[in-house]
């Protein structure tokens, strides 16, 4: 990106220097597992105002956690994101207008950017009873979603609710909460699960789409592979403790204080695909993710784990690996009887025989006393 190009753009960026901006773009590229040089390409894509992607953000049955998580991202900051990088045309929490004005903005954006905008959905969609459990502007959200999705260039389901159903779909699922990909079937839906997901998994996906005009590589559950390709267990900082069999058995015990593995406290790392141990969470430095704080991973981003499996139940292992102990050259299976053990058993048996003999003798004597005739 040339300096001249940046100058035309710098007014929009505000206080950000060209250097910082390019650095940020490179970080995003590396985060997605792309070469550094792609950073320049990303910079070009997002500074091109004509190409700045319009984003419509729909919220269904959600807690705003996904938005909150996004609000706390620092590279870029949210203002930088929504003012400079994307054109956030509709977002129920962040929009300045409200009520009918907001709805109008959405309608207008859809009309203007037909087939070009990115649709982001957070929260699960209630479908029971005609979808009356979540209404916006008098319309069930399921209808709004279907209407909007028709004209979207890409659909991103952010958060576990939009991806798998999340908390609202937990048994007995009173509202018929449904994930987005089960409603929109004619278009690919990118799932960014997590409760809330790391904002960078979302931002990287959006920027990848803006830069290359296609979606990043997805796994069979629609998750971007760059973020959800590995089990948490694989990159966990406590993994050596797992391999060595050093486990915290209960909260606050000696082993827990020593930072041992949390598997036996119900850590779902071995069955949850996410990049938490690699990129951490919340930009507050090392150890800033659930396992880092001493709490077992809860599997928030994994279908059928978070909100389904009890928090402290044992995870099932996806890949079983050797421990860092070794079998001995000749493994002893049982040591045979020691002399002491034999003596004890023999003693007990001897006593039993003696007692039996004595009883028998007694009975015999009694029988003789009573005589054969009286035998009952």
């Amino acid at each position, binding site marked *: 990106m040339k300096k001249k190009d940046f100058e035309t753009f710098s007014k929009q960026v505000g206080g950000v220097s060209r250097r910082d901006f390019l650095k940020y773009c490179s970080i995003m590229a590396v985060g997605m597992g792309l070469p550094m040089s792609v950073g320049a390409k990303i910079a070009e894509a997002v500074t091109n105002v004509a190409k700045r992607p319009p984003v419509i953000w729909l919220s269904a049955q959600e807690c705003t956690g996904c938005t909150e998580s996004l609000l706390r991202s620092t590279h870029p900051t949210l203002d930088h994101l929504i003012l400079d990088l994307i054109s956030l045309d509709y977002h129920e929490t962040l929009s300045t207008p409200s009520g009918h004005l907001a709805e109008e903005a959405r309608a207008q954006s859809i009309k203007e950017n037909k087939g070009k905008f990115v649709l982001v959905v957070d929260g699960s969609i209630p479908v029971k009873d005609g979808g009356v459990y979540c209404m916006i502007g008098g319309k069930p959200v399921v209808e709004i979603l279907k209407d909007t999705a028709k004209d979207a260039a890409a659909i991103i389901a952010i958060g576990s609710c939009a991806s798998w159903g999340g908390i609202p779909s937990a048994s007995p699922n009173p509202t018929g909460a449904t994930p987005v990909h089960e409603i929109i079937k004619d278009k690919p839906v990118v799932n960014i699960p997590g409760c809330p997901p790391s904002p960078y998994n979302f931002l990287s996906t959006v920027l990848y789409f803006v830069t290359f005009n296609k979606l990043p590589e997805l796994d069979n559950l629609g998750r971007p592979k760059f973020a959800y390709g590995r089990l948490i267990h694989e990159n966990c900082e406590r993994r050596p403790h797992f391999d060595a*069999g050093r486990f915290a058995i209960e909260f606050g015990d000696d082993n827990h204080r020593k930072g041992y593995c949390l598997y036996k406290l119900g850590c779902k790392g071995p069955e949850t695909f996410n990049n938490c141990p690699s990129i951490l969470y919340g930009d507050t430095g090392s150890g800033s993710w659930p396992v880092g704080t001493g709490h077992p991973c809860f599997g928030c981003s994994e279908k059928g784990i978070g909100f389904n499996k009890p928090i402290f139940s044992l995870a099932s292992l996806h890949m079983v690996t050797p421990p860092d102990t*070794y079998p001995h050259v000749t*493994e002893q299976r049982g040591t045979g009887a020691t002399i002491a053990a034999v003596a004890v058993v023999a003693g007990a048996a001897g006593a039993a025989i003696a007692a039996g003999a004595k009883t028998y003798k007694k009975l015999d004597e009694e029988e003789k006393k009573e005589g054969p005739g009286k035998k009952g």
Partner: protein
Amino acid sequence: MEIKRRDFLKVSAAGGLMLAANADPALAAREPKQRLPEALGILYDATVCIGCKVCVSACKQHNDMPPDFSSTDRTWDDPLDLSSRTLNIIKLYKNGTGEVKDRETDGYSYIKRHCMHCVDPSCISACPVSALTKNPENGVVRYNKNACIGCRYCQIACPFNIPKFQWDKAFPQIKKCQLCDHRYATGGYSACCEFCPTGASIFGRVDDLIKEAKRRLSLTPGEWAHYPIGRVDSKHTSYRQVTPYINHVYGEKEGGGTQFLMLSNVPFEKLGLPPLTDKPDAAVSEGIQHTIYKGMIAPIVFLGGMIYAVYQNTKNECE
């Protein structure tokens, strides 16, 4: 029917004599088979092994083997020995305080165990249906599940206790290392060697491996030397300080020679390897067998004797 004690003893003695005449191993043993010129194998150097067990993991992965549990909570793939689910294993020798690596007393050593791919394998000799065969070029001992009748003679015959039987399957097979020969076509080789980070297991022609082993034995402990990583002819080496060795290449001659060779500084019998003579068991047993049955003369004579004895003893009843 009444067999006269005298007659019975007579016949028994005749049979026994006949067997004894042929059964002298020294006379009966056939010529041991020779190492194939293009034989492939593995050299395992216990002094270079760091016990990381990537060979165990890589073997499982590239042979599609399921995990094997020895603990009740099934947390790790932690077999105690080779099994129908585990084709190779790293074991630990530990003595006393176990302070120093590769030392017999108060030290420890790793040892890798899997099929030795013998030059003259007992399992092939014992197999009645040729389910086990030796590749005529690279000498890999292969198993054919379609020929196997499940007699498990190979298990009893193997002096290294290698072939394992799937006791838990309805249609069981024998499982053992086949030197990853399914990977050669695509340029791969034994996964345990390909993924070994230190060069403790290296793959190559057995002749080259023996040369490499001899080279290592000729080095002076304390000097620095290159140890190839992956394959014996690899340019990729680790440069390390030489540690002492016992001056012996296990498998060069043991049991007629094997294609899996080992170096160590702890005596091999301490590492669970049987002390074998240079003569392969297969040559001895086959020698006895083939001499007894040569031209079917001895069996026919023996059968004739038996028939005669029976005839003598039942003559009266028949009449």
